[in-house]
């Protein structure tokens, strides 16, 4: 009894466990419970979003076009161009293709024709050396009847087989994991010696398009700011009754289908459209010199500014609404002109809103696809449209994946910045 009175007694719960461990246990349980609520969605998003993005990234560095062929009927992978790949492995990068190399190539072509995989091989090399796809199919058709010496025989079929650039491309393609698609996406290529060089002026499109995307997105962000700031300010300073009503003008476009808004702009801006008609009837322009405002850069900029404007107004509004008007009044009473009061007192308080709206609009603009595709013509296309082109038309999926990955990195960087500066918790809709 006396012991218990002197020694500090361990606090316990009713069932005799130490309080500290019981508390830790309860907290861990609460943590687990919260996590279990999120877990189903997290798994779902991993499957439908993260894994696909991962596959996209893989595709950008991994291409088996020259390596193996998936036989869909038998469900097996057949290795391709085995002899030629062995020859590449044994020889240094700048080796002249000799008779052994040509023999290996012919064997590969015969095998490819038998397995019907020649189209895939030709397409893979065609990414690097344009025009080579038909050369592969043509030569594969004749390969079975060729007799040694193979070098002369193959050059007889098509003299381009002696092209060192082609051999360099085949050597590159023989590796499954490659960064070559990133090189292409940055307008770089490997020459016959394997050095990285810029591609010809007329073939360099991607860097230009990345630049155009960034410049146009910046311009659109600036325009939305220019138009959004006065509107947000008006909405924030009017009594709620009125501003709620005017808010409809911002929210209705926000809720209206993107395709509807894009269609409207086509209708408004085309040369026989409403805007041109009004200007002609006002006598501002003559009927012959109707302005071309759609299917070019102007069309993309106007339509995207309209579509993204709510994303600027809403964050600005939510920052401006709580700003206390008495600060500006105090400045005025101390002798500041209304311009000075606005510039020195009001404007600095809106910076978080400008940052949030600007970043959000910029992030969304950089990846825009639908509107440029429909109203952009040839000069108003953005990088997304080129990704779609390579996915659907040229079928160079690895290049599309490389371009998409570069765009993804840029967007994730901006997203990280947004989370740092503003916090995604503060993202608000309407």
């Amino acid at each position: 009894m006396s012991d218990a009175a002197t020694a500090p007694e361990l606090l316990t719960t009713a069932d005799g466990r130490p309080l500290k461990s019981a508390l830790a246990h309860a907290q861990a349980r609460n943590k687990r419970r919260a996590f279990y609520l999120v877990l189903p969605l997290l798994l779902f998003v991993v499957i439908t979003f993260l894994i696909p993005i991962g596959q996209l990234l893989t595709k950008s560095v991994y291409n088996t076009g020259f390596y193996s062929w998936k036989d869909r009927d038998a469900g097996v992978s057949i290795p391709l161009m085995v002899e030629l790949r062995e020859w590449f492995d044994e020889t240094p990068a700048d080796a002249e293709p000799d008779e052994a190399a040509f023999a290996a190539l012919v064997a590969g072509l015969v095998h490819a024709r038998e397995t019907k995989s020649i189209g895939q091989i030709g397409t893979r090399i065609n990414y690097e050396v344009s025009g080579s796809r038909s050369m592969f199919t043509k030569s594969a058709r004749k390969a079975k009847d060729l007799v040694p010496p193979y070098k002369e025989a193959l050059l007889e079929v098509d003299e381009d087989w002696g092209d060192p650039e082609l051999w360099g491309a085949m050597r590159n393609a023989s590796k499954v994991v490659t960064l070559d698609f990133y090189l292409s996406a940055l307008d770089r290529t490997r020459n016959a010696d394997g050095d990285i060089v810029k591609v010809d002026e007329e073939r360099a499109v991607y860097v230009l398009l990345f630049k155009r995307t960034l410049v146009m997105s910046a311009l659109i962000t600036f325009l939305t700011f220019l138009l959004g700031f006065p509107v947000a300010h008006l909405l924030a300073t009017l009594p709620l009754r009125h501003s709620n009503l005017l808010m409809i003008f911002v929210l209705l476009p926000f809720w209206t289908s993107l395709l509807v808004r894009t269609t409207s702009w086509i209708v408004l801006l085309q040369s026989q459209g409403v805007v041109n008609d009004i200007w002609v009837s006002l006598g501002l322009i003559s009927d012959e010199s109707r302005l071309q405002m759609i299917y070019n850069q102007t069309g993309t900029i106007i339509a995207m500014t309209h579509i993204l404007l709510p994303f600027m107004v809403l964050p600005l509004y939510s920052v401006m609404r709580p700003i206390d008007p008495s600060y500006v009044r105090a400045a005025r009473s101390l002798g500041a002109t209304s311009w000075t009061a606005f510039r020195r007192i009001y404007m600095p308080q809106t910076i978080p809103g400008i940052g949030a709206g600007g970043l959000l609009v910029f992030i969304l603009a950089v990846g825009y696809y639908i509107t440029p595709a429909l109203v952009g013509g040839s000069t108003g296309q953005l990088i997304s449209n080129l990704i779609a082109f390579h996915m659907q038309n040229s079928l160079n999926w690895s290049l599309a994946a490389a371009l998409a990955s570069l765009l993804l990195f840029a967007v994730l960087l901006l997203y990280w910045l947004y989370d740092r500066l503003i916090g995604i918790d503060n993202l608000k809709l309407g």
Partner: protein
Amino acid sequence: MALPTYATPLERVWYYTYRTLCAAIFLFLIAPILIVIPLSFNAEPYFTFTEKMLSFDPTGYSTRWYDLLLTFGMGKPDAVRDAAWWSDVWQNAAWVNAAKNSVIIGFFSTLLATFLGTLAALGLSRPEMPFRRVIMAILISPMIVPIIITATGLFFFYSATGLANTYLGIIMAHATLGIPFVIITVTATLVGFDKTLNQAAASLGANPTTTFFKITMPLILPGVISGALFAFVTSFDEVVVVLFVAAHDQQTIPRQMWNGIREQISPAILSVATILVIVSIALLTTVELLRRRSERLRGISPG
């Protein structure tokens, strides 16, 4: 911000200039959306107001483009409009089928997104939630990552797993795209949620399930419904993923519109656009009413 009495003449001029400027910007925002409504009643296949329309001549207006929405793709569009004609419309009309697909995909993806999203939002707004910031960033990212990237990734993934050309594939993809909206709206509702209400319910003997359905659910319901509407609109307006992963015959309204705009734009597109504008007005009204209800429930003054 009424004009103060001490305003200088310059400030007065600026005040009215500013108001005019704002009016012009509001016009810029709303005009493109409203312009399609009168134009969709054009009797001629033009995209501008004809002389007759401007002089309000009734013959300048017609509902032929709305009629075309029903008859396009039908077996016998010129037959007598009896029950058989209407069943032909229901079976074969291209726009009606597209609408059916859009509604089916929209409904199931919304259901999935709302259920999973609400559950996750409940977890995310608990203070004990571990790795909250990272998980939130991941769950919101489908809204931030450009749609073309998501569509490309899904194309690779679905081709490899056999989900391409299936309804399940599209529904899952659309649910993913709608989830960020559900999370944002539901967490926003939960921010002002008074946790003592749950404790009160528990102290009165309610088990967690009863507490959730009787106390939490009714209070967060406006946010959940708003989120669901956002998710539905996202799916209903989504075209890129459908273009990339859907089968050729899986037409939806946006896909049909996309094709229509790319090939040759006809005023029939404007009649669809008008219908969609009316739908969005209805949705906006619903969300606005829900928001007010939610504010009232939580005791925030509506002003």
